[in-house]
């Protein structure tokens, strides 16, 4: 079967691995014609998505599965992260104002979602009916 994404990595939900995952995302983005500034932002935002899955969907359990797909085409770079943990409540993943975030900066996960929305052109967060979350993060590129 031909994969429908350029690159997919499957990794354990261990914070220790996040540095390796960031290095792989960076490596993929370096070949997509983005400038260093944007690469830094995208790496950060995807790392935030992984962090949220580990902390909230998997409540810190380190032996669960995360799957990150990267793809590009039609003027878009797309990164999609899937977990099979606890579906996020809508209020935690919806887009909020800068003021709301400043007021609740220590609320777990809130700042990470804010960064994701600020970096990408299009973000779709889909909590599963019974379990799991999918977050599609899309960046328009030249």
């Amino acid at each position, binding site marked *: 079967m031909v994969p429908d994404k350029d690159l997919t990595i499957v990794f354990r939900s261990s914070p220790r691995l996040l540095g390796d995952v960031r290095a792989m995302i960076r490596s993929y983005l370096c070949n997509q014609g983005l400038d260093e500034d944007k690469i830094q932002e995208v790496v950060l935002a995807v790392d*935030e998505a992984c962090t949220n899955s580990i902390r909230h969907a998997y409540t810190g359990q380190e032996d669960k599965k995360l799957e990150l797909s990267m793809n590009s085409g039609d003027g878009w770079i797309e990164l999609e992260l899937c977990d099979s943990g606890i579906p996020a409540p809508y209020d935690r993943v919806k887009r909020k104002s800068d003021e709301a975030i400043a007021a609740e900066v220590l609320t777990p996960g809130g700042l990470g979602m804010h960064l994701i929305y600020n970096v990408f052109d299009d973000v779709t967060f889909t909590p599963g009916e019974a379990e799991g979350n999918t977050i599609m993060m899309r960046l328009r590129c030249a």
Partner: protein
Amino acid sequence: MALELSQVEQDGHCIVMAKGEIDLYSSPQLREAILKACKATKGKVGVNLSEVAYMDSSGVATLVEGLQASGGADSFLLLAPSPSVLKVLQLSRLDSVFSIVETL
């Protein structure tokens, strides 16, 4: 890249030196170092971030916690933050919350 932390006393103030990457894995170590510095000094607490190659929102939350633990922006300073630290503070719209200086 791991996170290396050390503590330096200077004129009655306490500086936490951070070097490496601050993320979900390493931010608990930074938190511990900052809270220890807050207890150790009656002066100001500075966190030197000049050699931090990467920081995410768990690092930002840790710094906000330090800000609260030390009593506010007059007594908690971010020293010479690297460009990647500045970027995450700006993206978080929190750069104005902190006192950012080159030296203590």
